[in-house]
């Protein structure tokens, strides 16, 4: 029972207030500015030829990536869930690595492979693929290789939640292929489709890959309108169709997923090993996927970086950006988790209706493209007075991380909190503990792995964040992603590759440590 006059109300209200201020306000601001100017509202309704081209490219990028990533990821998820693969835990981590790398780093590696002076051109002596490397289809392929783990993990999780007996009941009647087609996949379809929609949103929101591969989409045009032309109104006009598209898709996604987003339900029965005959082909396919999505980009980057005369000189030259990125990502992840912990707790303990509204809000906020959040933050904070004092400082980065990553962290923490039975809190309460003491002594110790996971996720995302950072960064104050992105054109590729590798390493080390902690916990 939630007593209104309690420390719980104060803490959750404070976290909700921060969420509204940091996450909702920039979007609401962006949506209300055009309503105050008739010119802008009119422009949205009548898309000119340029806008139509952007809409076409953006849609093709989103749909193509969602389809290709699902085509790669869903069968891998099926294999992880229903085939007894050798070394499955390790394989799962290896297959999930691409989604942890900043997409523009993967794109960078592919340009070193397929560009006019890339590896393929130097080996064959002919420029065979550079035209294709910088194209919309290439952007689709690169983003699919980055985002397929989302489909894979969603498919695996969805299949694991299906009661094994539903399939056993069918296995008695029909062969594995029929059971898969008529029982397993229809039951898993909402989860797979929801993942495809999330991939769609992330693809159309992506700024680094289309920017690097010279594909004109909404996000790159918003950036150009603001950063190159400094046309704030034009940036907003460009942003709005994309915001609306993302919002609609996000709402549909929430409707599809429902309570499963934070559900802690454990199903009875062991899932049957349906496709044991496919063990070898499935294992081979997983290894090929790891080789293409992880092996090739990393090998290409290492090869390119080793050409640098002095790696230490490269790192020395970017020392300030490296240190700033580490500090900002650490501070940002901590700030985000502090706010998200209370929101996540409130979400986990909310009723069905309130919970679904909260999920919708979290997904919608996360779906807003990064460059658009950046424009919203600038509009809010770049003005005279107190806010002007904040604008132009590193605090803007933290505000950017809060705006983008609180929803993801809150959902992760809510999912972890769902595993703590309410009766544990009730038992603490009848034992005389107040809510804060119950939280710190009963709930938090049980969700500490969830909190650490949320922190690592946000650290990884913040350390690779580019879309917001590149817009709000104070002049001359670059983070590592901004530095990599801006020196690509005028710095030797070996230097850029070395920095990209450094960035990948910083991301993968905490993930490996977290993976180790989870493996040890599972082994117990």
């Amino acid at each position, binding site marked *: 029972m939630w007593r209104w006059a309690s420390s719980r109300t104060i803490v959750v209200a404070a976290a909700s207030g921060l969420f509204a201020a940091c996450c909702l306000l920039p979007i609401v601001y962006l949506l209300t500015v055009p309503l105050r100017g008739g010119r802008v509202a009119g422009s949205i309704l009548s898309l000119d030829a340029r806008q139509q081209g952007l809409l076409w490219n953006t849609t093709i990028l989103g749909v193509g990536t969602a389809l290709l990533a699902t085509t790669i990821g869903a069968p891998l998820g099926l294999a992880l869930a229903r085939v007894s693969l050798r070394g499955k835990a390790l394989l799962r981590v290896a297959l999930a690595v691409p989604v942890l790398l900043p997409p523009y780093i993967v794109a960078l590696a592919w340009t070193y492979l397929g560009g006019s002076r890339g590896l393929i051109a130097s080996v064959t002596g002919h420029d065979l693929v550079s035209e294709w490397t910088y194209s919309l289809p290439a952007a689709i392929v690169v983003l699919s290789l980055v985002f397929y783990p989302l489909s894979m993990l969603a498919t695996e999780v969805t299949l694991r939640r299906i009661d094994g007996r539903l399939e056993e009941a069918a296995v008695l009647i029909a062969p594995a292929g*029929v059971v898969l087609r008529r*029982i397993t996949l229809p039951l898993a379809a909402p989860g797979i489709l929801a993942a495809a929609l999330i991939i769609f949103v992330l693809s159309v929101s992506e700024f680094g890959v289309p920017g690097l591969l010279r594909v004109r989409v909404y996000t790159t045009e918003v950036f150009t309108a603001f950063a190159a032309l400094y046309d704030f109104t034009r940036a907003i006009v460009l942003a709005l169709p994309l915001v609306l598209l993302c919002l609609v898709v996000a709402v549909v996604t929430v409707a599809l997923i429902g309570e499963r987003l934070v559900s802690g339900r454990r199903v009875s029965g062991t899932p049957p090993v349906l496709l044991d005959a496919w063990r070898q082909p499935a294992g081979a396919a997983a290894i090929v996927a790891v080789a293409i999505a992880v092996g090739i980009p990393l090998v290409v980057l290492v090869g390119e970086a080793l050409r640098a005369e002095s790696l230490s000189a490269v790192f020395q030259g970017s020392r300030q950006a490296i240190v700033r990125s580490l500090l900002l990502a650490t501070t940002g992840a901590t700030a985000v988790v502090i706010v998200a912990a209370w929101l996540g707790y409130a979400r986990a303990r909310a009723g069905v209706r309130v919970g679904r509204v909260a999920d919708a809000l979290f997904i919608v906020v996360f779906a807003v493209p990064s460059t658009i959040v950046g424009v919203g933050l600038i509009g809010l904070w770049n003005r005279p007075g107190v806010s002007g004092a904040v604008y132009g400082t590193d605090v803007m980065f933290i505000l950017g991380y809060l705006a983008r990553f609180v929803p993801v962290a809150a959902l992760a923490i809510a999912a972890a909190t769902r595993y703590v039975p309410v009766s544990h809190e009730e038992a603490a309460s009848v034992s005389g503990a107040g809510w804060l003491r119950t939280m710190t002594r009963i709930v938090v110790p049980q969700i500490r792995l969830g909190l650490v996971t949320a922190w690592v996720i946000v650290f990884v995302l913040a350390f690779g964040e580019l879309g917001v950072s590149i817009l709000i960064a104070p002049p001359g104050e670059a983070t590592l992603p901004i530095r990599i992105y801006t020196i690509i054109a005028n710095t030797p590729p070996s230097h850029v590759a070395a920095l990209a590798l450094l960035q990948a390493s910083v991301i993968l080390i905490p993930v490996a440590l977290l993976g180790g902690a989870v493996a040890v916990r599972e082994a117990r």
Partner: protein
Amino acid sequence: MTEPAVDIRNVGKRFATHQALDGVTLDVAPRECVVILGPSGCGKTTLLRLVAGFDVPDAGEIWLESIQVASPGRSLLAPHRRGMGFVFQDLALWPHLTVYRTLQFVLDSQRLPRSEQDRRIQEALKLLRIDGLAGRYPHELSGGEQQRVALARALVGNPKLLLLDEPLSSLDADLRSAMRSELARLRRELAVTTLYVTHDREDAAVLADRVIEMSTGRITSVNETRPKEERA
């Protein structure tokens, strides 16, 4: 002498450090109803799962009508080729299929013409007294109706062997009693060979031709409750 419908020979099964079954030998005659009785964890469900082919034994052999279907570490015949019906403890009704489509799924595997499928489905619906529920999904059914659908699914394919894993345990006392009578009626009408797992002695008293008691993975007693000449 008639060949046994089910012949379980010295079967053993181990899960990690737990010996679930230890040298179990049992044969079931055609049309006989054998009730396996025992407390939780005694291995009765494991035995049923081995017969169904969901798991493989570590030791021993399983034969169905003179065909060996399992040997140590190997399944020799896929579950869907063993000709069985199975009623699960939690029923395991497919949430995305209506009652009619559920039964049709069973008959699709037998490659029957649509008209024959429809006839068999109507027959099964009538037999289980759920003929008005063909278009409903599982969540639109009461507990007793779901139970009948699970039974209809197990029976519509004319199985040679019916396996029931504590099918009445989730029902309240009144419904359990009604369904027990229903099962007895079906047994009389269909005379299908049945292996029935339960911890409820009343189920055994009403349904069994023979009662097998199990404890810690072994058969501890065998009692014939109905003389052979009185059986269905």
